[in-house]
């Protein structure tokens, strides 16, 4: 059993582990699914962000190019007139005004002569610009402070000999305004470089344009000038006018940004992942042709993936919570199931074991009553009223050679072990008492057997008696058991020497006593479950109550049931703590002689009379009759039967004759029964055997023989049947 519990525990522990593993597996699969989903979503989001950024970059660049184109064409279209103004410098102001006037994108314009081209005007640069009130104002740039010949917009186109977009710059003249200038070299009709024609454009629109890019809430769009200066930024507080180096410090992974920088500076388009300050994000960049500018859109990861990540996190949290809940539920289910199962199993097993033990116990003891229905000299009743748990009470009885062997015992302890010892003891009693006739020898035998096999320190109190049913002599031997009551004229305790209980020590001698039972004497045996039955107040039933309960003339069964009832009402609601076993032996004197029955049925046919000889032979053999007696019986029977066969039934009709014999100890009773015509052979006058042969009648001899052979002959007519009963005394 212990071993079985351990293995049960192991199994349940193992199944719990399997459960946990399954849950972990399920969790892992769930998580993997979520992650895969998440990664696919990320990729999709990546692609979407990239496409949105690129689209936006394209669109923005197109708009810029449109503006640039307008500005460039405005300037270029005036190239020829600027060429012309070289011959008439005074008109140059008008030309510039016209450029500004006719081209809304142009903020200001100037024609600046190469120093020394005109002898009269070594420095000449009238600048016409749109003032705040939208009127044209002209200022001369030929000042020493400004020093236009050294300005980028003047130097570069001459140097490159082509149109040139200047670095954006902040114009402080007409309010803070970011400007850029497109300038082209002007040659005179001789082909000599003479001047530079410019058109300024305000980059305010650029700022507006960039500000309106809101593909993601926190995305930033930057324009980078040729030299890497930030021109505009959607996020105004950021970076305006700072060099890229200045913001480099904020870039975590400089290598990443260097790639962007390099790419942007060299007019390439591309994409890079960077970490800027605390923001991780993507940078998409593309060049703005001709201007040398570069444009980039910085999108923080959070904008792209935020929703997805938050969804993922939420899903994960929900999954985790779900799993925890699931684990908790499964765990509690497994626990309660295990608990229930082990409890139920244990309970069931115990119950069934107890049940089996109890069944075995009950099957072993004789409990068919009346115990000896054929005996009139003995009324015996015994019963075990078991406590809730199987105990070790036992009783047994049987008759061998006209002697009643009986015993009552109580195994110390309770439960299955006690029941087993009880079973062993009872079968040992049967075995030993089958050939040992003295109670003390029976006890010695039982004791040796039990002491030898008993290593559980259990012992058995045992009372054993042998009652000679012929003469009422009772031999008994008591092994530590409650002495029985003897019921004669009075009720008293049967004196018995208390020996040690069985199973205590090997090779014990047991004393034996005798008492003679007379007709109507009785013996009452019990176990301590009777006298020690306790009520709620811990009072015991006691001997006096037993004695009182035994008064009165009742059958054995009534006696026991009466006592059991009294004990029950005494004990009340207190639980029965011990088995209660009782045996009542009522001795009713000398037994009647044994009677054996024989029967023969023949038809009313003369031939069948021959069967009577065999019938009588059987009886003769059973009763050990001598040949003369059996011959005489045969003759008497034949005469009586022949009378019936020949005369009871009408001629040629079928009828039967029943012949029964009761073989008593000292007599044989034979009865002949037929359903024929009423006829009393005993009423016939006896044959006169003194007559001479001449006077003798042929009939009447049969019944004469019957009367002479048998000791008594009786005729009865019962239920339409003739019954002739005749008896013959026999002596052994």
């Amino acid at each position: 059993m212990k071993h079985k519990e351990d293995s049960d525990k192991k199994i349940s522990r193992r199944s719990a582990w399997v459960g946990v593993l399954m849950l972990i597996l399920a969790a892992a699969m769930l998580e993997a699914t979520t992650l895969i989903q998440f990664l696919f979503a990320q990729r999709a989001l990546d692609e979407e962000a990239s496409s949105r950024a690129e689209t936006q970059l394209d669109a923005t660049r197109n708009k810029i190019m449109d503006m640039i184109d307008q500005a460039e064409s405005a300037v270029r279209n005036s190239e020829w007139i600027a060429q012309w103004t070289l011959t008439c410098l005074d008109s140059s102001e008008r030309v510039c005004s016209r450029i500004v006037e006719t081209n809304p994108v142009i903020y200001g314009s100037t024609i600046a002569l190469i120093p020394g081209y005109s002898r009269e005007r070594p420095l000449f640069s009238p600048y016409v610009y749109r003032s705040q009130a939208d009127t044209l104002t002209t200022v001369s740039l030929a000042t020493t402070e400004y020093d236009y010949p050294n300005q980028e917009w003047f130097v570069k186109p001459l140097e490159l000999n082509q149109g040139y977009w200047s670095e954006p710059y902040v114009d402080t003249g007409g309010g803070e305004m970011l400007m850029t200038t497109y300038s082209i070299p002007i040659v005179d009709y001789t082909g000599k470089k003479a001047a530079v024609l410019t058109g300024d454009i305000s980059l305010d629109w650029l700022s507006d344009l960039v500000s309106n890019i809101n593909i993601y809430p926190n995305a930033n769009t930057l324009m980078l000038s040729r030299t890497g200066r930030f021109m505009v930024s959607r996020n105004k507080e950021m970076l305006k006018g700072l060099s890229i180096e200045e913001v480099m410090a904020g870039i975590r992974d400089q290598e990443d940004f260097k790639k962007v920088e390099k790419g942007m500076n060299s007019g390439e388009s591309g994409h890079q992942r960077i970490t800027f300050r605390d923001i991780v994000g993507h940078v998409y960049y593309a060049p703005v042709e001709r201007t040398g500018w570069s444009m980039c859109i910085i999108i923080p990861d959070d904008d792209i993936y935020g929703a997805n990540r938050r969804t993922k996190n939420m899903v994960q949290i929900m999954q985790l919570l779900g799993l925890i809940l699931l684990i908790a539920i499964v765990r509690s289910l497994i626990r309660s199931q295990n608990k229930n199962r082990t409890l139920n199993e244990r309970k069931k097993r115990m119950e069934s074991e107890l049940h089996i033990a109890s069944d075995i116990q009950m099957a072993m003891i004789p409990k068919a009553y009346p115990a000896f229905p054929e005996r009139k000299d003995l009324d015996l009743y015994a019963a075990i009223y078991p406590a809730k748990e199987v105990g070790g009470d036992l009783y047994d009885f049987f008759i061998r050679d006209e002697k009643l062997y009986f015993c009552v015992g109580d195994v110390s302890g309770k439960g299955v072990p006690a029941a087993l010892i009880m079973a062993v003891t009872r079968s040992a009693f049967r075995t030993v008492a089958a050939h040992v006739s003295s109670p003390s020898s029976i006890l010695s035998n039982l004791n040796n057997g039990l002491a030898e096999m008993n290593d559980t320190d259990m012992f058995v109190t045992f009372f054993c008696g042998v009652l000679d049913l012929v003469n009422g002599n009772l031999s008994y031997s008591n092994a530590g058991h409650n002495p029985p009551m003897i019921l004669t004229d009075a009720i008293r305790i049967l004196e018995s020497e208390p020996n040690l209980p069985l199973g205590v020590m090997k090779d014990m001698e047991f004393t034996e006593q005798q008492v003679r039972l007379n007709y109507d004497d009785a013996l009452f045996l019990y176990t301590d479950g009777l006298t020690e039955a306790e009520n709620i107040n811990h009072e015991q039933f006691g001997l006096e109550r037993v004695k009182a309960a035994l008064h009165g003339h009742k059958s054995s069964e009534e006696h026991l049931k009466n006592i059991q009832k009294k004990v029950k009402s005494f004990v009340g609601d207190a639980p029965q703590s011990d088995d209660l076993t009782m045996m009542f032996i009522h001795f009713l004197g000398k037994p009647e002689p044994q009677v054996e029955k024989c029967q023969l049925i023949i038809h009313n046919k003369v031939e069948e009379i021959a069967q009577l000889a065999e019938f009588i032979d059987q009886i003769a053999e059973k009763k050990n009759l001598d040949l003369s007696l059996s011959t005489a019986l045969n003759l008497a029977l034949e005469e009586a039967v022949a009378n019936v066969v020949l005369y009871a039934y009408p001629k040629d009709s079928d009828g039967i004759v029943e012949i029964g014999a009761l073989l008593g100890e000292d007599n044989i009773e034979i009865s002949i029964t037929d359903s024929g015509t009423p006829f009393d052979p005993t009423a016939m006058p006896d044959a006169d055997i003194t007559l001479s042969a001449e006077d003798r009648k042929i009939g009447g001899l049969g019944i004469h023989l019957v009367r002479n052979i048998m000791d008594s002959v009786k005729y009865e007519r019962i239920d339409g049947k003739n019954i002739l009963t005749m008896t013959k005394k026999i002596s052994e």
Partner: protein
Amino acid sequence: MEVKITKNNNVLNAEFIGRLDTPASLEIAKDIELVKKEASGTIVLDCAELSYISSSGLRLFLSIRKAAAEKGGKVIVKSISNDIRSVFMMTGFLNLFEIQ
């Protein structure tokens, strides 16, 4: 049941072998008729091998005895067992026959 009938010097000898019960008596009724025809002479009923006799058998014996009385013959019952003797006694047959 068997009856052996032999005749020697005017003496008819009938030897009964077996049990002479009711059915047997019916069987040997013809033999008895043969015997009775010789009732004027001496009839010996040899019962050495007769183990049993019932009243029907006794009646056959009585009918032989009656026939002999009628025809002036003589019936001798020979070698009866004690059991049959007691039956004869009970029925008064010992007085009816000459027992040898």
